[in-house]
């Protein structure tokens, strides 16, 4: 089947039940989207489907046909994506970095719907993304910074 990823069409040979995460990582070779739980509990696999934050680990390929998929590798294509990455760098957010692709994808989706998010907006927009290193406070700062830039 055909997948529209970051503006390019990729042909994958996979069963329609395969979660998008594994098609991205193992079939297409886009490894920026991370596996953390496989159950939509940690947010490491967050991608955008038609601009909306989606957990790729529980989204079957059958649900993404004809939809625009954006991954961390393509997020800099948008001005907002670039701004969020720049804010992440300015705040020196990552420690191990493993969860940060998902954090950034969630943050971009949040900022798209809430260009000037309150702390409460950040709470609800980002609470699904786990970080074991404890980068949450800088994530919050980076989102505010991106909103102000």
């Amino acid at each position: 089947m055909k997948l529209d990823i970051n503006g390019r069409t990729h042909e994958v040979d996979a069963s329609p039940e395969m979660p998008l995460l594994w098609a991205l990582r193992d079939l297409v070779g886009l490894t920026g989207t991370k596996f953390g739980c496989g159950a939509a509990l940690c947010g490491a696999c967050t991608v955008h489907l038609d601009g909306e934050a989606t957990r790729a680990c529980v989204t079957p390929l059958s649900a993404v046909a004809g939809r625009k998929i954006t991954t961390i590798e393509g997020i800099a294509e948008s001005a907002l994506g670039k701004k969020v990455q720049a804010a992440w760098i300015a705040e020196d957010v990552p420690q191990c970095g493993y969860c940060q692709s998902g954090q950034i994808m969630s943050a971009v989706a949040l900022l798209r719907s809430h260009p000037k998010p309150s702390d409460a907006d950040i709470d609800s927009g980002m609470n699904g993304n786990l970080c074991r290193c404890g980068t949450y406070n800088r994530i919050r700062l980076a989102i505010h910074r991106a909103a102000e830039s």
Partner: protein
Amino acid sequence: MYASRRTFLKTAGTAAGGLLIGLALPVRTRAATASVAADTAVNAYVRIATDGKVTLLVPKSEMGQGVYTGFAQILADELEVGLEHVTVEAAPVAAVYNATFAPMQFTGGSSSIAGSFEVLRKAGASARSMLIAAAATELGVPAGELHAANGAVVHAASGRQLSYGALAARAATLPAPTDAKPKPASEWRLIGKAVPRIDTRAKVNGSAGFGLDVRLPGMVYAVVARPSTFGATPLRYDAKAARAVRGVLEVREVPSGIAVIATNTWAATQGRAALRVEWQAGAGAELSSDRIAADYAARARTPGVVVYERGAASATATGHALEADYATPYLAHAPMEPLNCVVAFSAAGCDVYTGTQFQTVDRAAAAAVAGLAPEQVRLHTTLLGGGFGRRGNPASDWVREAVAVAKGYPQPVMTVWTREDDLHGGYYRPQAHNRLTAVLAADGLPASWSHTQVVQSLTRGTAFHAMMVNPKTGIEATQHEGASDLSYAIPNVRVAVHDAIQPVPVLWWRSVGHTHTSFAVESFVDECAAAAGQDPLAYRLALLADQPRHLAVLKLAAEKAGWGTPLPSGHARGIAVHASFGSVVAEVAEVSLVDGKPRVHRVVAAIHCGLVVNPGQVAYQVEGAVCFALSAALHGEITFVDGQVQQSNFGDYTPVRLTEMPRVEVHIVPSTDAPTGVGEPGTPPLAAAVTNALYALTGVRARRLPLSHVEFTKASA
């Protein structure tokens, strides 16, 4: 996206005479690409290309603690190059990279900067000296007239200069000087500065290469069906349905279970789900956390093996007697990146790609399983998506298994653990019971203190045990650290351990034994203060009068937290202090109850860790440790019922989320002492700081973790 990076595999002679094989990590990928052709190894830490690009080899694993940045700061400072001009690579496995205090290359014990600071300064100074010597020959002037600056050697008198790129080849042929002098502190440009991390860009655009991102030509994926209770072994299995799953290539038995190899991870997990395996139950079939807790509590009331004694704590003392029991559970490390390992056999031996903290040990283990000599195994250290101790295992469990899975398979195999595999896979922080008794003297301070613990050894059954166990007592220091090195000036102290034996694999977990001993000690000293009717801060200060580092961090944290100043109604503060890995950390937690549940609003920490290479990263490590410890204090536990682990994913093993993260402020005590540990010391004091605050708020003493088991009701005002 590792496939293209394989082209960066390269070899170069080292000053130590060995062979360097570096796998470039995606930090400054372009620079690495540009410098492939003509890199010269000046020594084991420094490579310089003809175009002047400098590559620094870091033998420590980057798992979030910022070691690539810290090591680069030290080396680049001595080498007189800008951080923006260096590329960092994971060093290969070689004896030259062994720790100064252990015959192995590893990352742990908060020892990277503390243990390598002088080594790196000398390595940088030595390389600089060799470049200067090469320039002296080239320019025909005495070395004493030359100095290094901005990646070049300069002859100030004539205005001539030669770039490192032009000098590296000659420099590498020179003998390494034995007397190269590191720069004095007054000349440091990078050491001591809060420079941004050098790996951030790759971590915000998806290009950072973790173990799970390794991609080799023809690589296939495997998952392993392991028993659901510890010690069980496969009796027989039926793989017919598994083999019928689209994408499944092979099903094979390995020592740890039944492996399913497939063209992709999803197919492998589907194949595993279709497997029918009959297991022979083993020693762990009956495990019960409740039974362990009851057994440990009973044993803690019996004497145990004395590991430390001063005065006569066991003698009958008169005064106000206190006793308390503290219980802590098994904990999983649960790094965000589940375990994984790629193994590729070839005619030349075997390549292993994994995010490990234990290079030497894992390479030897891989070689043993592969039937090769260690030198025939090339271990490539990737970035680690969190470590916290799980990736430094004397048993090399996931590496051994991955080699067994791939052995004899014609293509490279990545063995992947799911989150459920990770949480069920053992190597936990051990469950523990700490029982304390004290007798207070007339001034309210403890005249005697007795601490008895029941806890497993961390290394029993591995080669490490013989090195770590005290032959006289049969006990490991990691079982009682944080208790037997009690800092409080109490005249009579007795610390004893019951060595528990359980069929549960255990391991160090960020701050090791201190994780449970600090909770017990810092809770109990708070209980003593309360019994004496004294302020918890003043009480600690009185008992630590001869411990300047403790005093410094306690006073700094208390001052910055506003200790003793009014708080909003329904809020309270608690304090704790603990020494570990050579450093001392004090933390003040501010808490309230929200819907009857503890909520931590703010943590103010102060750390004394000697000389600081990067204050930004030191602060961030303490902040991270607060989050890690808070996750455990609020929610963390691995429990057993009928041998089965009751937790399986982040739904029931729940780390702190963004909404639970307190504000964290970290203050560093200025010091020029030798650097001490940073990655772990922020962890131990947190739980007691929180429970002491909850006591101040509610009058309820939480003596069991996690706090989800403790009922709090706010004391009526």
